[in-house]
């Protein structure tokens, strides 16, 4: 029987939390579900990737998402999705296998490629009417789609989101964290600076850009949502979920502890935003790290719902 701190229990809680998180976000995007809607800002491309990882663990969710994509794929920034997907479809640094199965990702790519999947899209669209409602862009967690509605499906939406959440940033940092080309981000920021939409300040070798508070019309939306940087978050939890579900990690507290140490810096960086502290790996040699770290990782997942 699985004990409270066993790998089996960890997998059970992890999978449950991960799926609840996905359902809540998709519910907010218009998929019918019993779960409550999320209050967190949604990153659509990151959510698609995370759902692809969990596709085999919740077929009902996956089917609903495929239908959603068939109906509302115009909201998806495919170039950004492709760039973001690189870390998920190549063999993972620690697990030595891709986080998303090839056939699952091919299904997404096929669906988003309108010329190749028109037949499948039509089928999905007709079924979708019963289970989907169009995303209501005024919902605060859908600020990304709201901005895409205003600026189009391009880098501008994430750029504004970044500046709203972080206050300021340079073009390299923003490009890295939003998964856009640095040159593209730089050109937009420079144009916005010329027009006075953002403020440019030279600091060392980099220009820092911030939104001019006088022009910000979205602050009320952001105030109710604490921002999560979803791509690294989903990458972290995908690794954990896959490891917890597959040998040799799944029944080995030591190997899971070792993986926890691998992802410790990533987890620390993510948890900084909600001030959750993780136990120092040096204080818990071998598999002694499993109980305290597994609990903290589940706590972080819970706080993201």
């Amino acid at each position, binding site marked *: 029987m699985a004990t409270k701190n066993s790998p089996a229990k960890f997998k059970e809680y992890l999978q449950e939390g991960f799926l609840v998180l996905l359902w809540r976000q998709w519910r907010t995007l218009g998929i019918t579900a019993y779960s409550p809607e999320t209050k967190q800002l949604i990153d659509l491309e990151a959510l698609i990737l995370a759902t692809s990882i969990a596709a085999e663990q919740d077929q009902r969710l996956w089917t609903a998402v495929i239908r959603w994509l068939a109906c509302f794929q115009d909201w998806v920034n495919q170039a950004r999705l492709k760039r973001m997907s690189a870390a998920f479809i190549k063999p993972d640094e620690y697990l030595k296998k891709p986080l998303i199965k090839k056939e699952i990702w091919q299904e997404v790519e096929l669906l988003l490629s309108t010329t190749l999947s028109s037949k499948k899209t039509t089928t999905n669209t007709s079924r979708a009417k019963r289970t989907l409602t169009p995303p209501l862009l005024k919902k605060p967690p859908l600020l990304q789609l709201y901005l895409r509605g205003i600026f189009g499906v391009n880098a501008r939406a994430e750029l504004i989101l970044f500046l709203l959440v972080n206050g300021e940033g340079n073009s390299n940092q923003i490009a890295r964290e939003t998964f856009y080309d640095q040159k593209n981000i730089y050109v937009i920021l420079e144009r916005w600076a010329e027009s006075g939409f953002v403020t440019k300040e030279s600091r060392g070798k980099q220009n820092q850009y911030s939104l001019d508070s006088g022009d910000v019309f979205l602050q009320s939306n952001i105030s109710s949502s604490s921002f999560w940087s979803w791509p690294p978050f989903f990458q972290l939890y995908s690794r954990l979920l896959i490891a917890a579900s597959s040998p*040799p990690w799944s029944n080995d507290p*030591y*190997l899971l*502890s070792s993986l926890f*140490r691998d992802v410790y810096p990533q987890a620390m960086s993510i948890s900084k935003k909600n001030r959750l502290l993780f136990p120092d*790996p040096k204080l818990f*040699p*071998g598999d002694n*790290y499993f109980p305290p770290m597994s609990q903290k990782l589940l706590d972080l997942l819970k706080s993201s719902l």
Partner: protein
Amino acid sequence: MIESKNLELIFTALDRQISVSSGARISLVVCGGTALAALQLVARTTKDVDVLGSFKKGQIVKIGVFPEWLKAAAAKVERDFNLPADWLNLGPESQLDTGLPKGLLKRLVKKVYGNFLTIFFISRIDQIHFKLYASLDRGGYHVEDLFKLNPSEVELLAASRWVLTQDVSVGFRMILISFLKKHGYEKLAGKI
């Protein structure tokens, strides 16, 4: 630090790490303090695992440089158990060039730590050989280890004859005789 109570954990961890580092099956021949602890011959801690070579087709063969997957696996274990850098090392490998005690291969004690890692520990009698040599060469804790092994006169005589094949100089023979006398083996010294 490595000691008998965590040795099993450390080698099992190394086996598990080999499994996730795309590694291959490997058999290592281990001597030194780790072998003393593993066979519970001497209860003491050690900071590293001295690898003499790999065990292949009934022979001990030189490794030269550990394969990348073993280095990667050892690095993970180093981090996970707060072990010193180079905790798994090929320090004593040159012993293969100068010769091993006769019958060492037959006396190796095999322990399997999983699907990938098998360790062959050198036996008590071979430890007496190596520890006598190290006592003459370096002294210190090796002397302590040697006498904790409680060698008989016959065993010390065999070890003495072997160490003289490692260094054939007259000076070394004098050091050996002096060492044996100092530790109460005057009769044995006379036979050298």
